[in-house]
């Protein structure tokens, strides 16, 4: 049986190789053997670079018809209060040139405070919360801003290796102004003791790039007698579009 010590040794070896190679990586590796499920699911050939064509320099449009204003509050979906640490998560969605991504869809999903997902394949013996589903949506505002109200998810066990635990995280799904900017990622919480042990987090081998997935505790977002606040900005790839798109 593969142990955490085995996985940690693999992670450490890949980290050393990266540090001594001297080539900076900014993204996530697709081929990262400590995450066992990636072994047969990563492409072996380099992507072919193309100029965006046809629909690719554009994104689908989402609007008021798609997303209701209450969908950004994950604590009011079942009539009662979910158990856990109530918090706000807020930030901005920017493109690679620092421009706000306006009026675009943000989707989130997460485990409950006990680390349990509403999914039939998650059968670990932590309680489901009858007052918590764990999915939310919003549209960014004119400044690229988003804000969700939710509860802090718990860490949860998985079967990558014996006694494997994922750090607490919220899944984020983001669109830009171009199809080519599509991003699905995970937001983490500062200081999580599971970071060093987690092959999914460590699959971003550059420590500074990895840190971009960690939210910051923000006392200005925290509300007295109500909830804590975390801030997390998201930067998509550059847009290939010309400034003409501003007229849309």
């Amino acid at each position, binding site marked *: 049986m593969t142990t955490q010590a085995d996985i940690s040794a693999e992670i450490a070896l890949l980290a050393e190789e990266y540090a001594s190679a001297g080539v900076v990586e*900014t*993204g*996530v590796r*697709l081929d990262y053997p400590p*995450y066992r*499920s*990636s*072994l*047969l*699911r*990563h*492409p*072996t*050939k380099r*992507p*072919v*670079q*193309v100029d*965006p*064509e*046809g*629909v*690719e320099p554009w*994104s*689908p*449009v*989402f*609007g008021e*018809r*798609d997303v209701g204003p209450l969908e950004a509050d994950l604590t009011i979906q079942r009539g009662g209060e979910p158990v856990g640490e109530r918090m706000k998560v807020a930030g901005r969605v*920017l493109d*690679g*040139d620092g421009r706000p991504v306006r009026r675009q869809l943000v*989707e*989130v*999903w997460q*485990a409950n405070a006990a680390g349990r*997902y509403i*999914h039939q*394949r998650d059968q670990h013996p932590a309680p489901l919360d009858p007052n918590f*589903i*764990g*999915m939310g*949506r919003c549209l960014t505002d004119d400044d690229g801003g988003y804000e969700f109200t939710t509860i802090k998810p718990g860490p949860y066990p998985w079967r990558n290796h014996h006694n494997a635990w994922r750090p607490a995280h919220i*899944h984020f799904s983001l669109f830009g102004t171009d*199809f*080519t900017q*599509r*991003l*699905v*990622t995970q937001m983490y919480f500062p200081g999580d003791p599971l970071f060093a042990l987690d092959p*999914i987090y460590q*699959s*971003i081998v550059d420590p*500074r*790039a990895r840190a971009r*997935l960690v939210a910051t505790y923000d006392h200005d977002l925290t509300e007295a007698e109500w909830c804590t606040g975390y801030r997390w900005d*998201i930067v*998509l790839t*550059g847009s290939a579009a010309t400034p003409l798109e501003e007229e849309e």
Partner: protein
Amino acid sequence: MTSPQTPGQTVGPFFAFGLEYDGDSALVPPGSPGAIRLHGRVLDGAGEPVPDALLELWQADADGLVVQRSGSLRRDGYTFTGWGRAATDRTGTYSFTTLSPGVTRPGSTQHGDPPFFAITVFARGLLDRLFTRAYLPGHPHDELLASLDEERRATLLARADDHGFVFDIRLQADDQGEGETVFLSHSGTQD
């Protein structure tokens, strides 16, 4: 000024309740005028089906025009938005009901740009999204297709069947180094 981009992470195994929704894969109602099916399987490096993948489809309308209309998340049955989402089932099969995209920007080149379905792939075990194109058969004049050898080119060609098109996606080559779908990066995106 460029800011460092936020890295991707896998969708993991539990995306169903977060990303799937009623009508996600039906860009038009099945059986409506012009409706076709785009379907296929997602396979791993051993040729085994991937039952926990999610595909997103983004395409032009039947006239080859880029659609900029909302309503993909709450479909009214009449508005074509050009975008949809389909998870694979336990056999690794996905299926969209949609329209056949027209030739984009007619007249922009001698032959027009050949129509394709732009597809994004997500899966448990796949650490970042992948982009590809499913080209409709019968439009040979394309810069990307022309740049690939025959084995690789074939992975980007959808095949016609009785109800529309079949397009399989193989995430990883077999042990002969063949069959892997051509995935794309885009100039201008640092990808």
